């Protein structure tokens, strides 16, 4: 899909030929946007698009309101990213900050899924599920309700300012802003308790952070879906630029059957179709295109693969009694085959799709295994650095450690601590009222929290043979529900 620079320059100069250097220099660096007025259309792909739009928006707006009982003292929101509490909740799953690699895994999963889907079905993400597409579609719907369809909107924009024009414009932007604010508001609900935040936002009691992010996402939604629209896809988004690497001649793309459409031209009812193409040049495919391109020019960077032109063309084909699917989702190879009169063949298994599928399966497996094997208790040990070690009056050496127990279960737990590596080492836990060195050392951690203990390990002088001796802390759940280990060292004087 090469971008034809010369033709664009010509376009910018009103199709005048580029003849001299001086003329070239006066071409602006950035072409002005030609405003797109997409026409309403009905059909198979428009229906699919409406369904996906409804599902996506419903999921986005409703999910924060789902409740999930996690017991007392725990948030009851099904999906919640609790930044101050440093937890992420997803139904029964609870993610701690150090498990953020699951997020990285999800992002990689999303990327590879996108690669696979794109190599099979083309730009269906762009055309149907991308938030930019979904919200732009919603904004266009509102625009159509208020200002009318394509022709009415074009006429309105050319009219001088009047009370009715101003009223329509104000109504449109107000409606857009309301939707945008709803979008920004719903975003915030994923990071804080939704019902509380909802009430707080309207009573002015929410935090500055909440208002900031509501404002930020209101602004971006309003600007991107209301004003920028197809420019986001054409100029801002990196994905259209590099997805060409996933597409090949076997991928589904929106195609125009040039071999049967050309030569195009107006057609009078009742006259013969011999010696001419099926395309009657009604330009309906151009009128409905949300990015304002002509699909008959072939593959283009701007095409988001939404298939609305297919719906528009099929409606016309039905009226004039010609075969359907002059514009259709097809592969480039199939188009060549059809042109030769050969049957179309779809090849799903290709090296690239197999590779993407394998990659996807591997990542899913790795993530699933990592998730299922994720420990319910973890321990981390921080050795004191000041003092490095203490010599006691009988020559024994003592090291201090800070022990952190991460109890990821929903119940209070007790553990026994044992040490290996330093012979006859004694453990003292520094805590209120208790300094006994009894065996075994029992430590507890409250449900879903981190317990911190100061621990002193003392070893007789004769037991220490090196400046640094490996020391392993082992924590065992007393009910046999998991254990954790930490490898540290025990330091002594120079030998």
């Amino acid at each position, binding site marked *: 899909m090469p971008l034809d620079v010369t033709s664009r320059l010509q376009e910018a100069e009103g199709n005048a030929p580029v003849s001299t*250097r*001086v003329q070239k*220099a006066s071409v602006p660096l950035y072409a002005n946007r030609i405003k797109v007025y997409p026409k309403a259309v009905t059909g198979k792909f428009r229906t699919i698009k409406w369904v996906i739009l409804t599902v996506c928006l419903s999921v986005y707006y409703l999910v924060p309101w789902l409740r999930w009982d996690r017991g007392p003292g725990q948030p009851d929101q099904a999906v919640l990213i609790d930044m101050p509490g440093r937890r992420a909740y997803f139904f029964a799953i609870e993610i701690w900050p150090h498990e953020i690699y699951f997020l990285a895994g999800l992002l990689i999963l999303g990327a590879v899924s996108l690669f696979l889907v794109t190599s099979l079905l083309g730009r269906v993400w762009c055309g149907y599920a991308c938030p930019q597409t979904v919200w732009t579609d919603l904004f266009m719907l509102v625009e159509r309700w208020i200002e009318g369809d394509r022709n009415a909107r074009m006429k309105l924009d050319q009219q001088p300012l009047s009370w009715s024009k101003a009223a329509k414009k104000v109504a449109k932007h107000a409606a857009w802003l309301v939707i945008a604010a709803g979008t920004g508001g719903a975003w915030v609900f994923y990071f804080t308790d939704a019902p509380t935040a909802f009430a707080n936002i309207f009573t002015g009691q929410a935090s500055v952070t909440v208002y900031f992010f509501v404002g930020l996402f209101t602004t971006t939604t309003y600007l991107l879906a209301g004003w920028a629209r197809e420019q986001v896809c054409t100029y801002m988004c990196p994905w259209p630029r590099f997805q060409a690497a996933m597409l090949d001649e076997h991928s589904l793309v929106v195609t125009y059957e040039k071999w049967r459409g050309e030569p195009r031209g107006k057609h009078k009812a009742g006259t013969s179709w011999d010696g001419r193409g099926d395309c009657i040049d009604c330009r309906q495919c151009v009128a409905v295109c949300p990015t304002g391109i002509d699909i008959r020019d072939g593959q283009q960077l701007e095409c988001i693969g939404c298939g609305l032109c297919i719906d528009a063309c099929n409606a016309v084909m039905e009226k004039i009694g010609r075969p359907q699917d002059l514009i259709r989702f097809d592969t480039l190879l199939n188009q060549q085959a059809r042109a030769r009169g050969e049957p179309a063949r779809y090849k799903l298994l290709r090296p690239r799709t197999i590779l993407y599928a394998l990659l996807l399966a591997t990542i899913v497996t790795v993530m699933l295994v990592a998730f299922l094997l994720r420990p319910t208790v973890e321990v981390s040990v921080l050795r*004191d*650095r*000041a*003092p*490095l070690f*203490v*010599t*006691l*009056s*009988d*020559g024994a050496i*003592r090291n*201090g450690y800070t022990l952190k127990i991460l109890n990821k279960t929903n119940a209070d737990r007790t553990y026994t601590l044992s040490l290996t590596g330093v012979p006859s080492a004694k453990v*003292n836990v*520094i*805590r*209120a*009222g208790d300094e006994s060195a009894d065996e075994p050392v029992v430590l507890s951690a409250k449900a879903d929290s981190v317990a911190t203990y*100061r621990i*002193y390990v003392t070893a007789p002088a004769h037991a220490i043979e090196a400046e640094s001796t490996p020391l392993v802390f082992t924590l065992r759940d007393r009910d046999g529900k998991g254990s954790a280990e930490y490898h540290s060292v025990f330091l002594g004087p120079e030998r």
Partner: protein
Amino acid sequence: MPTKVEKDQITGTRTTGHEWDGIKELDTPLPKWWLYVFYATIVWSLGVFILYPSLPTLSTYFPGITGYWSRAELAENLKAQQEIRAPFVKRIQAASLEEIRADPELFDFAVAGGRVIFAENCAACHGAGGAGAKGFPNLADDDWLWGGDLEAIRHTIAHGVRNANAESRNSAMPRFGADGILTPAQIADVAEYVLSLSGTAGDREAAERGAALFSENCASCHGEAGEGNVELGAPRLSDKIWLYGGDKASIVQTITYSRNGTMPAWSERLDEATIKMLTIYVHALGGGK
């Protein structure tokens, strides 16, 4: 140099009018958006001038309409923090050291607060974490000059060592060499004996000679077996811990000139609750008795 303003033929932009060896420079205007942002910052700065302290006068300054002062903000923050801590501090004040030691909440508060207070006031001599240094006792070990139970530690912190405070820990070791009480040879013998108390093998004959001298001159404070005396701050000589060094030269130096380290009385600078928190912290460093 000619300064005739002219238009560049190719771009249509004005030139600066200067020419260097046939090369002219375009006088391209600044981008509009940049210029407007720049003007906006000027307007913004006027607002800042009016709202915040800005212009100096001869003796003071114009404080701005808001009268903002970062120190006042800090003071407010400190006050807010103190209000949060107040209930705990009150409880610490009312409780005995043993009660604080036994109450998990107060104990954690005292240790956390004590750590900060220690770093601010004590670590300069005693080292981070009470690691100590030559002449400054290690507070994390189990050897105490003036006693290592809660009350003894509190007393030492509150009243200090060998200072003008009425309840200061006080004692003085004589300068056995400098004041001519013992001869250098006798001091060497005593030093050998002191070394033998902690099991360090040396000159056995000299140590035997030193034993009698030790019993005569040192045992009244340090004990017959060198077990020390916390009443007098006399260090235990029979252990592995040496405040001023455990080699023979250091011991000879100590006997000849004596040491007599000092410490300020912290009750003159810190309040009671703070000293209690420090006590709990030092006691929990590992050596508390």
